[in-house]
């Protein structure tokens, strides 16, 4: 069984993102970039399936600048077999990402696609569902547990109010929650070894997908700031403030 894992290069989750003063976007110059944490969980899950004997190949796909090769190398160092980079310097919206991934699915014919539920830059939470839709495949988003049993993926999903378990007939798309697993640490030697594994660089133009953005970003602004609060000395003072000043009790 082959698993395909789409991964995105994003601003590292520890970076405190700042909005540019001219409101054209967020500051990305000299900012640390990493694999989207949800995608890292997806890579780990795919590798665990190989280790459990339920899968035998893990192919990573990324769409982004030349530097996204680092993101793919990171995933290969974790244990994936190879990577495909669809190169572009443009910002590609989830709908176009899904269309590009659909073409890779036709080429690679994976039995399962696992990807992060959302990217932590645009927070869209769309790509997995859109890919499943275009392929007319079943989907299970927000995976908390994943088990392959014969022709089915049994997925426990995190939903409002609790958990839902569904069984999808493969091929299918699964998107991950962070609680699905703990991604492994990548050592320097494994990173060095990953450099020898295949990484196929492809020009985005060859896919003939319309990548023209549908959304025009008019401006990017910082969120409203909260006014500075106060520290109270006693619980009695706190309750008094909540009752008589804030009037929320």
């Amino acid at each position, binding site marked *: 069984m082959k698993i395909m894992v789409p991964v995105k290069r994003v*601003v590292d989750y520890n970076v*405190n*993102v*700042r*909005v540019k003063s001219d409101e054209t976007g967020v500051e990305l110059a000299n900012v640390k970039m990493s694999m989207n944490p949800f995608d890292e969980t997806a890579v780990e899950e795919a590798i665990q399936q190989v280790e459990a004997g339920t899968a035998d190949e893990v192919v990573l796909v990324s769409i982004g600048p030349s530097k996204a090769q680092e993101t793919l190398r990171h995933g290969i160092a974790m244990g994936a077999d190879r990577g495909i980079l669809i190169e572009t310097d443009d910002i590609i*919206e*989830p709908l176009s990402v*899904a269309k590009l991934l659909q073409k890779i699915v036709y080429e690679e014919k994976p039995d399962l696609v696992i990807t992060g539920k959302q990217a*932590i*830059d645009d*927070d*869209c*939470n*769309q790509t*997995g*569902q*859109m890919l*499943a*839709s275009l392929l007319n*495949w*079943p*989907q*299970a*988003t*927000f995976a908390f547990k994943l088990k392959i049993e014969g022709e089915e993926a049994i997925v426990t*999903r995190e939903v*409002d*109010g*609790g*958990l*839902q*378990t*569904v069984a999808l*007939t493969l091929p*299918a798309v699964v998107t991950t*929650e962070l*609680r699905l697993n703990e991604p492994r640490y990548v050592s320097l030697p494994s990173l060095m070894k990953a450099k020898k594994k295949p990484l196929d660089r492809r020009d985005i133009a060859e896919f003939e997908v319309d990548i023209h*953005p*549908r*959304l025009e*970003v*008019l*401006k*990017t*602004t*910082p*969120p409203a700031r*909260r006014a*500075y*609060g*106060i*520290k*109270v000395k006693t*619980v*009695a003072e*706190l*309750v008094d403030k909540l009752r008589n000043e*804030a009037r*929320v*009790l």
Partner: protein
Amino acid sequence: MSILIIGEHDNEFLTDSTLRTITAALSLKLPIDILLTGSGAEAVAQSNARYQGVSRVLLALNPSLNQGLTEPLADVAISLAKNYRYVMAPSSTTGKNLLPRVAAQLNVMQLSDVIEIVSHDTLRRPIYAGNAIQTVRSRDEQLVMTIRTSGFEPAERTDQDVEVESISWSERSYRSRFVSEEIVDSDRPELSSARIVVSGGRALGSKEKFDQFILPLADKLNAAIGASRVAVDSGYGPNDWQVGQTGKVVAPDLYIACGISGAIQHIAGMKDSEIIVAINKDEDAPIFQIADYGIVGDLFEVIPLLITELDKG
């Protein structure tokens, strides 16, 4: 030229997040149709669907829709969506799961987590966990969007009649099946719409302590319970209690953070609360930077005192 809302209900009432989505839609000043599915939908449509702006309830009652599976629900929504200028759903797990599947079939780029509708084609939505807000104009002919409901009030009931229409659609065989569900049935207010939220973090130290300290305070205030990611990952509470970038986004009137240091991740999920109270032993904890009222102290001492003080009423 109207609006379709993919509604959610509990077999009796529309969910609070659906009511807030109606409010978001009202600003577009177009007729609103609500799609309801599942066995209890008919009762909701007959008795509890009269809200300002809502002109029609569309009922899809096929048994295949009863278990909340994605594929049949997506088929119904897609069959209807073609006829609407706007398709909306709350940013619930159901809405987030379903709507991109609909958008892709319409060849539309979805707008996720809309916090403000500026005009017929321009909206505002958070990116980078709320550290930036984008104002975006869509060039698509149809707009598909999930609504972050914490920023909108629930819609008002009216006496106006609502047209109820059963719809049929072509079912096919689906490649997913329902296995099981563990839904916690609770008398507590729903986390994403509660007026008061009491949240616990790492400092609680165990599930026992979480139950012993956070629950009674929440009971006292008739509050929903939240938790930081660390608390949930450590098993102090179920997954869907998590407030934050990767969990639920809440904006109650009062948010009480107990033993939560205030990681960016958590703050992203609660910083729009009206009043924030922080209880923490570490006076330098980042949570105090956004708290309206902070109290530096051991939560195991402060919470019981707080309950006693609230009892004095």
